[in-house]
């Protein structure tokens, strides 16, 4: 399973790519595999605030529906509008074209709550065999 080394992760399987005080958020390879075929993503409004561990959107697959959780406090600065017509990009390229939102990070200290790649991989292995 692919866990890129330059990302931070939540226990709910979102990833965050930090770039200065900004960040890009998506869901992980593990998450997309668990959800199966994604048929749409409910995106937040640009400009809306997000709060760590609170839902900011919804991803719906054929099988099930799942909330998207914010990795940190901040504000939505952009959303991936391409997902409206190509929600399957979240399945095919979860770390690339399937990104979900771009955010401004309020407090970089809150990044300490997130999981490093190694820890996240352990977490996935636990869930897979749990």
């Amino acid at each position: 399973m692919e866990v890129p080394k330059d990302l931070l992760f939540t226990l709910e399987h979102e990833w965050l790519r930090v770039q200065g005080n900004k960040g890009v958020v998506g869901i992980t390879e593990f998450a997309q595999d668990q959800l199966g075929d994604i048929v749409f993503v409910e995106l937040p409004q640009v400009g809306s605030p997000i709060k760590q561990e609170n839902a900011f959107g919804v991803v719906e697959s054929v099988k099930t529906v799942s909330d998207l959780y914010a990795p940190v406090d901040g504000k939505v600065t952009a959303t991936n509008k391409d997902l409206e017509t190509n929600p399957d990009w979240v399945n095919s390229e979860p770390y690339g074209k399937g990104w979900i939102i771009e955010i401004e990070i309020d407090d970089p200290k809150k990044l300490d709550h997130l999981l490093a790649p190694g820890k996240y991989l352990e977490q996935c292995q636990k869930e897979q065999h749990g």
Partner: protein
Amino acid sequence: MVPFAGWNMPIQYRGVIEEHLCVRERVGIFDVSHMGEIEIRGKDAALFLQSLITNDLEKMTDGSILYTLMCYEHGGVVDDLLVHRFSPDHYLLCVNASNQDKDYEWIQNHSGPFQAEVENTGPRTAQLAVQGPHAEILLQPMADSFLGDIQYYHFRKGKIHNVDALIARTGYTGEDGFELYLPAEEAESVFREIIKRGGPYGLQPIGLGARDTLRLEMGYSLYGHEIDENTSPLEAGLGWVVKLGKERFVGKEALAKQKAQGPARKIVGIKLWERGVPRSHYSVTQKGSPVGEVTSGTYSPSLNTGIGLCYVSREHSALGTRLEVRIRNQGIPGEVVKPPFVPSNVKKD
């Protein structure tokens, strides 16, 4: 893999949408060995079955198959099932996995006055469903007889890949295809052989996920969703398998009464106009007021839209009625349609 009625079942192999379209466009194989089988034999087998099922055995011939229900005295549904007639005194029932033990007990408990033997053959029977437009051409070279003259809802005993099989032209997908009943210990070799020969036809193994989306596009009922012990076949749209003209069967009095009164609610199909996926137990409203509940819903891979079956009060059940499904506190609009949601391609005579 997920646990299902005591079995470990694959939800998906490659992906629900890909598997779904594979069955609609080409051919897929399902391991449905979890389905239950019960055989009834004896001089009174027909009389006995007649006393339990809502449909009428009378017109069955050897090699024909009947879809029916068994009901409780109060009219609720014990199970829906297929009855296969080998001969006037020998039948095979195919029942839902989750109801197998309950059904077997129910049947045994009613066998009192009848000279009939009831046997639970589920544990030694495996079942493979081969479904899709290429099903016949794929299976024909493995069969010892001409499959083309097995009509829809008919079966034959024969051999598939040299294994004794009951070959039935039935399915739960709305496509042409077969359900093969096989000795459990030989099913794996048949499964592997079909997979091997299926390559040129684009065959894929299909999981429970696509089994559900395929049956939902057809509007077929699933026990535990559209029907259960608290629902009536009449409100579930299954009045066509309830033959009140029969002399007697368990539940007849209750169902005759319901029919006279008319059911208060009805199963309807709903097709959403906007983005959203109906799911079991979501509320159905009209202009915001509750009128019913979704029993099964999905994203239709064929139509690229949300579809569902739901119970709504009778006055909101007319075709074309505009309703909403409440999805995360929003009413997503749609309309009442008549299932199947996509045309059925089962074999016509």
